């Protein structure tokens, strides 16, 4: 297993944002974590990146215990994240943002042009905007930049937090097809989504979070076909 999460508990003060969650991510797969607003999806991803303190439980990455490792040390190990709300650096240009993505890599200068080429290949739009201040771009472009930036560190595991949030349907399709393409290039993906229909379609396995706990597990196909899941998360039909 690439990532093993066991009995993880994270609090905000006395609020238990996630309680005793256990799940794993297999190398080369797309795993999705779906659930309503406030279920604890973002907290889970932040904790995997080391931005939130673990109260109990453990996180193992490539067999190594990273539960209490500082966030900046996880990036060189191969954990990268495109966070909720994109969080691009608004005052930096597109290229500067991408360079920030490679910040943790010792050999970034050597692979820079190939890395940029790869990102521009996935997102040709970013090439057109190369020198534009990232804060002045549209939501969709910023999302592409956030994903591209996360790829610049050559992640083994890419964490994506609601990449489709606030995007037009056509753009959502495009983002999901790019997620598939990234997986085909060999990166494992843990995808957090409220757009459950799309997420289940591309996921090898899926977990449903409700108020901080995992309530259902299955393959993407199983959950997508399940009546109760459809009723609760897919608005009746896929």
């Amino acid at each position, binding site marked *: 297993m690439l990532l093993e999460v066991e009995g993880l508990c994270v609090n905000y003060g006395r609020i238990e944002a996630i309680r005793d969650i256990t799940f794993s991510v297999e190398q080369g797969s797309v795993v999705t974590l779906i659930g309503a607003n406030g279920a604890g999806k973002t907290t889970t991803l932040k904790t995997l990146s080391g931005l939130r303190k673990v109260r109990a439980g453990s996180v193992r990455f490539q067999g190594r215990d990273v539960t209490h490792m500082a966030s*900046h040390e996880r990036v060189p190990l191969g954990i990268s994240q495109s966070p909720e709300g994109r969080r691009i650096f608004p005052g930096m*240009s597109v290229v*500067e943002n991408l360079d*920030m993505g490679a*910040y*943790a890599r010792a050999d970034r200068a050597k692979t820079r042009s190939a890395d940029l080429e790869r990102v521009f290949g996935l997102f040709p739009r970013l090439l057109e905007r190369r020198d534009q201040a990232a804060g002045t771009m549209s939501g969709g472009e910023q999302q592409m930049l956030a994903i591209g930036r996360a790829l610049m*560190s050559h992640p083994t595991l890419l964490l994506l937090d609601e990449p489709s949030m606030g995007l037009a349907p056509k753009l959502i399709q495009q983002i999901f097809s790019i997620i598939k393409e990234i997986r085909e290039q060999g990166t494992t993906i843990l995808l957090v989504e409220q757009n459950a229909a799309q997420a289940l379609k591309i996921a090898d396995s899926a977990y449903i979070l409700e108020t901080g706990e995992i309530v259902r597990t299955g393959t993407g196909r199983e959950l997508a076909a399940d009546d109760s899941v459809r009723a609760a998360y897919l608005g009746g039909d896929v």
Partner: protein
Amino acid sequence: MSFLIDNFVELTVTGLVLGAVYGLVALGYTLVYGVLQLINFAHSEVWMFGSFAAVWVTVALGVAPGSALPIVIGVLLLALLAAMTVSGGVALLLERVAYRRLIRLDAPKLVALISAIGASFALAELMGLRDRVAGWLGLRDTLDPYVRSARDNTRFRNPLETEGVFSVGGYTVTNVDIIIIVSAILMMVALDQFIRRTRTGRGIRAVAQDSEAAALMGVNRNRVIRATFLVGGIMAGAAALLYLMRFGVTRWNAGFLLGVKAFTAAVLGGIGNVRGALLGGFVLGLAENYGSALIGSEWRDVVAFLLLVVILLFRPTGLLGESLGRARA
């Protein structure tokens, strides 16, 4: 009015000289604010310690004014190095003692500010009581030239003699004027390039814009914070020597007023904005000089702080507005 017009060139040049010092000290406030949104109140003492380091080097070397030029340059460079090292060291110490724990605990900014005010008084008094400290260590006599009259003005014997270089409008611009203004501009350019081009500099910008996102890029926030304090301290050390070359005295509590003025310059230029710091310094230095020429030099500090109030009321983001993070390459 006629005094202002008759002395316009002199007021302008000395205003720029003063402003260069304000600007370099303002950098420390602006950098730390950009990264931590915290006013490092004790930065004034970082400058003050640097000024004493510079004085002590000249006392130790005992070079009389009028020595051969290579010696003069050597002494000044040593004094600069000492001031930058001591100021940088005090800044790092401040970060370690007064802030680090509070930052880790994510304490309210007000708590950190109070801690900084405490550290500022402690550092100033430590310098003002340095004769006693030397006494406890049994070094009162050995260190006499460095610690005597600890609560009075301490003079800096500038090994470089002030000389006129050229005259305009009835004022003779001196070598010291030129050195100060040019050094301040050069240091500002160097810092600007450091922040834009180097890896640490990009880390500083990233933390200033979004510290959580920076952590996701692998930026070590604590390292960036230390680098910020260090760089701000080094700039304050340079400012200390330049100040002494022109104004000639320092004092255990001289940091206070200069610090508040430099902070005003930082706000004036747009706090968090590196280029704004120097601009704010120049504007403040000129405003002080012109203002005191118009209404009397005893109003100098009133002019400076009135300017601060007006800026805060009408343009709280300062002249250049944008923050350290937002600054475009």
